[in-house]
């Protein structure tokens, strides 16, 4: 997955794949039923902005008073190799979901990479604690989920949603999270305490890895809500395109806004 450490994603976006809310799901299914395929958007539809902003303040407070302190504590008490091992272990557990979605998106090469890495890491890498695939020079680990699969099938996101405790999402990705639970054997074979523990570890581990990036992001943003919204959307689209560059040439055209001649504009 493109866990960018230069920019940040909201940790809770990822956690959201695991814990969909029933209510959000209902809304989501209704929306999907009537929306049909939609084109990729460059501007994010945010009709619920005023509510979303309130939820964002709540999530942000939660991050500052709970998640961030926990992440800093985690960094303080663990050596780096332990944190790396945990990260690898958690990523390895995601293999069934990634593989299922590689296949749904008809990506045999990526599916093969997913299987190969899982075999190496699980058998040679002590149950996934060591990313043997990475050490052997395999392509960077990728992430897939059913939200991305729906996007590849041409389903649009629907309105931007800021979900309490979960973070930025949208109806399509919330449905995707629910479907992904079904592809995950641990959902059925492990006790719920194990599943919750694993989600929690995933969130804390991600937040710890991005402490400096969150700090920098908060410091540089003029409007944290708007900045988070565009960042989430851009990272997600890039993930859906599997990292290929977007087609957004129009933003680089000076003349469509008459940018080249400010003097003429001022005269008008």
């Amino acid at each position, binding site marked *: 997955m493109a866990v960018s450490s230069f920019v940040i994603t909201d940790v809770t976006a990822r956690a959201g794949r695991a814990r969909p809310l029933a209510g959000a799901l209902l809304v989501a299914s209704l929306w999907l039923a009537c929306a049909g395929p939609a084109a990729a958007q460059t501007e994010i539809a945010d009709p619920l902005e005023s509510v979303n902003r309130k939820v964002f303040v709540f999530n942000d407070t939660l991050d500052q008073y709970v998640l961030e302190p926990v992440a800093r504590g985690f960094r303080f008490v663990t050596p780096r190799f332990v944190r790396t091992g945990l990260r690898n272990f958690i990523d390895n557990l995601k293999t069934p979901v990634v593989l299922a979605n590689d296949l749904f998106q008809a990506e045999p090469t990526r599916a093969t990479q997913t299987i190969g890495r899982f075999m190496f890491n699980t058998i040679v890498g002590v149950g996934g604690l060591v990313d043997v695939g990475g050490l052997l020079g395999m392509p960077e680990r990728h992430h897939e989920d059913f939200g991305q699969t729906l996007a590849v099938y041409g389903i649009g996101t629907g309105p931007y949603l800021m979900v309490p405790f979960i973070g930025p999402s949208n109806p399509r990705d919330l449905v995707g999270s629910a479907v992904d639970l079904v592809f995950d054997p641990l959902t059925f074979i492990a006790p719920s305490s194990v599943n919750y523990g694993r989600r929690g570890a995933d969130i804390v581990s991600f937040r710890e890895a991005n402490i400096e990036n969150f700090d920098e992001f908060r410091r540089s943003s*003029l409007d944290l809500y708007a900045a988070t919204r565009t960042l989430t959307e851009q990272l997600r689209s890039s993930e859906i*395109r599997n990292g290929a560059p977007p087609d957004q040439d129009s933003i680089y055209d*000076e003349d469509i806004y008459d940018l080249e001649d400010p003097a003429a504009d001022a005269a008008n």
Partner: protein
Amino acid sequence: MISKIRQPMRPTSQLARRRMLQLAAAVPLGLAVARAAWAAPSPDAAQSMVEAAGQQVLAILRDPALSNDDKLHRLVQVLDGPIDLALVGRLILGRYWRTASEAQQTEYLGLFRAYALNNLASRLHLYQGQSFKVTGAQAADDKDTLVTSQILGDRRPPLSVDWRIRDVDGSKLVAIDLVVEGVSLIISQRAEFSTVIDRSGMDGLLAELRQRAEKA
């Protein structure tokens, strides 16, 4: 293989405009003029421009003689050349550029330059002593060339940075956007700035940027 995602359609007028440009370029008389104004930089030239900029940045980050403050200061100086911040600033404002007064435009470009350089420098500063590799270059459209690069960390997955390079006045190659892991500087800042402008006007944006400049 299923095509990954449907791209938004270009507005017809723009498409038509592009067609006309292509036609114009085919006319021998127009050829010389059109070339100078529209040709994308050659991949080799763009690539070596990015390599040079990257090496300058790395040299600063790795210099043990410099304090952290010195490094930030030097990064700001070094980044000013290869990125056309005046153009980037105008592209970010988009349609709001037209409606701003001349005084607002001038103040905005000054404040934006400081804001962008400080942010870029302090983000790069997080990447102490890591390595940088240019991985390729290709024409993005008729004006720009996209240079792909990676920042390699010792314990992190490589970070992809795409540089959009343009030949602004026929002699100097400059970057007009940086795209980090699919996140474009222009798109991000445009989303943020337009939200601020919609809420509190161009003067509101200038006030916010002024406040940042005082803190920095």
